[in-house]
C-alpha cells in the first residue's frame, strides 16, 4: 500500500475502559512533514488515541506502523526513542526544577556512566533552540516562567528527545491570540524542517489556520478524513458533533435597565501586597453582559474576588450592588442579595468532585434559599431543584446520586451554570464558562447565558477565550496590568484591536 508515503499509520485501534469504548477501530494515517489535525469533541477519543501512540495506554486491538514497520512499544520511553514526542494539554513539567533539568529529564547525557554531563546537555539543547528559533532561559526555574514559555519548553523537550512526530494536545487553550500566532509560526517552521505535527484541537478556526489534513473523531470513531480546502467550518462542525451547530451566538437586541452593580475606584492587592487591580470603575446594568478580556494574570482574578467578596478592597474603593454598599459584605451576604458565581476552577472552587450531583446543585444555597428546615435538609425540595437543574441544563448523569467526579467536564460545567442561574440571582459572575468543554456544550452554555441576560439579569463574563468575550458581551472591558480599558461595545472593535489592548493597554492603541 502506501507504506512509504505515510510516516505513521495507526490501523483499527480499539481501546476500551470497562464498558466505555474510547476508540472503536480508529485508523489514522499521517504523512511525513505535514500538520495533521485531529479534531473532535471532548470525549471523542482524541487524547486516548494519542496516549495509545505514546504508549501511555495499551490498545486492545490494532497495529501501529511507523516508517513502514510494525512497532510494539513497551513503555513511553520506548515510544519517545522511536521519535514520538507528546506535548500534553496539562504540561508535564516539574515546577521546582530548572528548565534545563526539565528538558533533559529521563534522557540525560552522562559522564563516567553515572554523572550528569550538564555542559554537553546544555550545548545540545542550545543547538536545538537555535535551529528551531526557540528562546528560553535554561537556568530559570519553571515556576517563574509564563505559560507561553512553558509550552516552548515542552516543545524543545520533545525535540531534544529526538522526536520526529510531535503531538500537540490542545496547545492553544492557554495562549493569547498573539501567543497562538507564535505557536502556529513555530508549528509551520517545524513542519518545513521535516518534522511531522499531530495537532489535537476542538477549535475549528485553528484547524483551518494551520492544518494540512484533518481527521475527525466522534464517539471513538473516525467520521471524516478531509482537507481544509475541501470543507468549511460548518461542515467540519457537523462531522464533529453529528448535527448542525451554531457557531455564532444568537443575539437578539435587549433593553438595558438600571445599574445593578457599580464599582468605584476599586483597587486590590494580592497576598504579597502587590497592587493587582488599579482604580477600577465600571457599571453593570440590568440585562447586560459585560465581558472582561485580558491575558491571564492581568487582574481579572482580583476583580472577581473583589466583587464577590473573596478579597478585601483597598481604602477608598466602593462597590454598590442593587443600590446597597457591599464593599465590606461577606460572600454569603452577597449571595443572599442575589449574586451568583461560576468560578474558573470548576473542581477546585466550584464544586466538590467527591460529592453527589444533588449535593453539588444546592452547594452555596443551602442557607440563603431555604433548602433546609431548622436542622435537617429537606430532600423533597432538593430533589425537585436538582431535577430542574439537570433537565433544564441538559446535564447527562445516570441519576442525581451519582458522584460528580464521574461526570464529564462539560456536564459539570452545565450543572454549575445551572445551579447559579436557576436561583433567583440578579447578577452572575461567570469565569471561563466554556474552558475545556466541547462544542456542543459551548453552544448550549452560550445560549443559556444570553437567555439569562434577556430575562432581566446581568452577567459579568471573565474569559480567557477572546472569541467568547466578543461573541457574548454587550460591552467589553480589557484588563491590562491591573488597569481597565474600554474594549468598546459589541462588534465595535475587532479581535486584533482588542488583542493589542490585552498586550499593551491603552498606549498600543494608537500604534
Amino acid at each position, binding site marked *: 500500500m502506501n507504506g512509504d508515503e505515510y510516516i505513521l499509520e495507526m490501523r483499527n485501534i480499539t481501546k476500551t475502559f470497562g464498558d466505555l469504548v474510547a476508540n472503536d477501530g480508529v485508523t489514522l494515517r499521517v504523512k511525513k512533514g505535514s500538520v495533521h489535525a485531529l479534531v473532535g469533541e471532548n470525549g471523542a477519543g482524541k487524547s486516548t488515541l494519542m496516549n495509545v501512540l505514546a504508549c*501511555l495506554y495499551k490498545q486492545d486491538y490494532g497495529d501501529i506502523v511507523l516508517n513502514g514497520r510494525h512497532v510494539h512499544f513497551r513503555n*513511553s520511553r520506548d515510544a519517545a526513542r522511536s521519535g514520538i514526542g507528546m506535548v500534553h494539554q496539562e504540561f*508535564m513539567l516539574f515546577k521546582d526544577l530548572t528548565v534545563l*533539568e526539565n528538558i533533559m*529529564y*529521563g534522557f540525560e547525557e552522562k559522564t563516567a556512566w553515572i554523572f550528569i554531563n550538564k555542559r554537553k546537555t546544555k550545548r545540545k539543547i542550545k543547538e536545538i533552540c537555535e535551529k528551531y528559533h526557540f528562546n528560553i532561559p535554561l537556568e530559570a526555574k519553571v515556576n517563574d516562567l509564563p505559560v507561553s514559555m512553558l509550552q516552548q519548553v515542552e516543545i524543545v523537550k520533545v525535540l531534544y528527545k529526538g522526536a520526529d512526530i510531535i503531538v500537540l494536545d490542545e496547545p492553544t487553550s492557554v495562549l493569547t491570540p498573539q501567543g497562538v500566532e507564535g505557536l502556529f509560526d513555530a508549528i509551520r517552521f517545524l513542519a518545513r524542517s521535516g518534522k511531522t505535527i499531530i495537532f489535537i484541537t476542538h477549535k475549528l478556526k485553528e484547524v483551518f489556520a494551520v492544518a494540512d489534513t484533518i481527521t475527525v473523531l466522534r464517539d471513538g470513531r473516525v467520521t471524516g478524513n478531509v482537507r481544509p480546502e475541501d470543507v468549511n467550518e460548518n461542515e467540519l462542525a457537523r462531522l464533529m458533533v453529528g448535527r448542525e451547530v451554531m457557531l455564532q451566538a444568537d443575539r437578539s437586541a435587549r433593553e438595558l435597565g438600571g445599574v445593578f452593580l457599580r464599582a468605584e475606584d476599586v483597587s486590590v492587592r494580592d*497576598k504579597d501586597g502587590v497592587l493587582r487591580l488599579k482604580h477600577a470603575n465600571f457599571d453593570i446594568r440590568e440585562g447586560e453582559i459585560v465581558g472582561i478580556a485580558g491575558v491571564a494574570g492581568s487582574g481579572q482574578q482580583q476583580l472577581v474576588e473583589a466583587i464577590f467578596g473573596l478579597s478585601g478592597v483597598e481604602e477608598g474603593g466602593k462597590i454598590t450592588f442593587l443600590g446597597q454598599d457591599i464593599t465590606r459584605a461577606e460572600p454569603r451576604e452577597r449571595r443572599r442579595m442575589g449574586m451568583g458565581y461560576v468560578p474558573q476552577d470548576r473542581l477546585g472552587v466550584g464544586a466538590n468532585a467527591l460529592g453527589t450531583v444533588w449535593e453539588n446543585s444546592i452547594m452555596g444555597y443551602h442557607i440563603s434559599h431555604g433548602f433546609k428546615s431548622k436542622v435537617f435538609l429537606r430532600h423533597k425540595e432538593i430533589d425537585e431543584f436538582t431535577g430542574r437543574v439537570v433537565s433544564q441544563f441538559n446535564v447527562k448523569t445516570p441519576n442525581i446520586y451519582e458522584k460528580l467526579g464521574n461526570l464529564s467536564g462539560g456536564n459539570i460545567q452545565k450543572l454549575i451554570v445551572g445551579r447559579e442561574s436557576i436561583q433567583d440571582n440578579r447578577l452572575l459572575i461567570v469565569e471561563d464558562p466554556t474552558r475545556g468543554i466541547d462544542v456542543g456544550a459551548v453552544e448550549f452554555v452560550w445560549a443559556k447565558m444570553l437567555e439569562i441576560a434577556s430575562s432581566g439579569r446581568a452577567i459579568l463574563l471573565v474569559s480567557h477565550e477572546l472569541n467568547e468575550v466578543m461573541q457574548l458581551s454587550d460591552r467589553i472591558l480589557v484588563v491590562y496590568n491591573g488597569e481597565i480599558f474600554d474594549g468598546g461595545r459589541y462588534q465595535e472593535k475587532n479581535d486584533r484591536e482588542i488583542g493589542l489592548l490585552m498586550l499593551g493597554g491603552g498606549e498600543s492603541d494608537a500604534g
Partner: protein
Amino acid sequence: MFWDVIGTCLSPVAAAAALRLSCPLIIGSTGGCFNEKTSTGNLAYECFMLTGAFFGAYGSYLTGSPLMGSLLAIVSGLVLAAIYGVLVYHLNCNAIIVSVAYNSAAWALTTLLLVVVWNTRGQFNDPSIVSYSNLEWAFLKPFPALDMIFNYNILMVYFAFAFTFIGYIVMYKTPFGLRLRGVGINPDAAQAAGINVRKYRWICLIIMGASMGLAGSYMPLCGMSLFSENMTRGRGFLCLTSTLVGKGHPIRTMFVALLFGYANAMTLVLSTYGIPTQIIGMLPYVMVLIVLLSVGIKNYKGGADISGDTL
C-alpha cells in the same frame, strides 16, 4: 553561674557530645531525604530506628562483631521497608495509617523481643554486645579542641558525614537523583517521561529503611553495649523533622540534624548544673518547635489564601 553555663554550652566537650549524638540523626535523615524527595509518605522513622537498635544489639550479641550488628540492623530496616512497600504501593493501604501502626508496633515488638530473646525487662546489658571501638588519629593530637571533638569517635561518626556527601552527589549530580526528585515533584510528568515511578519509590524506600536501621544500630553499639526499652526515645521523629525542615536536601538536612544533636548534648551538659531534668529534657523538642516556627515565619506571607493555590 550563668556564664559557667554559657561557657559549658560552647565548650569543646559540648561540641564533641553534639557530634556523637547527631551521628544517628545524620545517617537516618540522609536516608530520609530520599524518602522525602520521592514523596513516599513514609513517616515510620521511629519504628525503623528502634527496630534497628534492637537488631544492632542482637547481631553484635550473637557474633561478637559490631559490624555484623549493624548489618543485621540494616537487614531489619530492609525487611520493614519491604513490608511497608507491599502494603502501601501494592495493596494501596493509607501511608499515614501504616506509619502510625509501624511506630506504635515497634515499641511493643522490641520490648517483646527483649523478653523472648534475653528474658529480661527494661534493659539488657551484657559484655557480649560488643560496641565499635574508638578510632584514634595521631595528627589531631597537637590541637586540643579539635582532638577532643573529632578524635576518638567510632567509625560511624565519620561515615555519617561521608554518607551525607554521597547522598548529595547522588541526588544532585546523577540522572538517578534528577529522576527521583522529579518523581516527588510531579509523578505524572515523570511517568510521561518514561520513568517507572513505583520503582523509584521502592528504591528510595529501601535506602531509607537501610539507613534508618543503620542509624538505629548506633545507639547500642556506640559504647554503651546495651539495649533498653524504647531506646531511641523520639530520635526517629527528630530524623523525620530534620528531613522535613531540610526539605530533603542532604546537606541542609545534615545541619538541622546537627542542631538537634547539639540540643540533645545540652540536656547532658546542663543536667550537671542542677537545672531540673524535665526542663532540660524538653530542649530538643523545643528546638524542633523553634526551627519550625522560624522556617514558618520566613515563609509566611500573611492572610489566608482563598484562591487555594498554595495547597
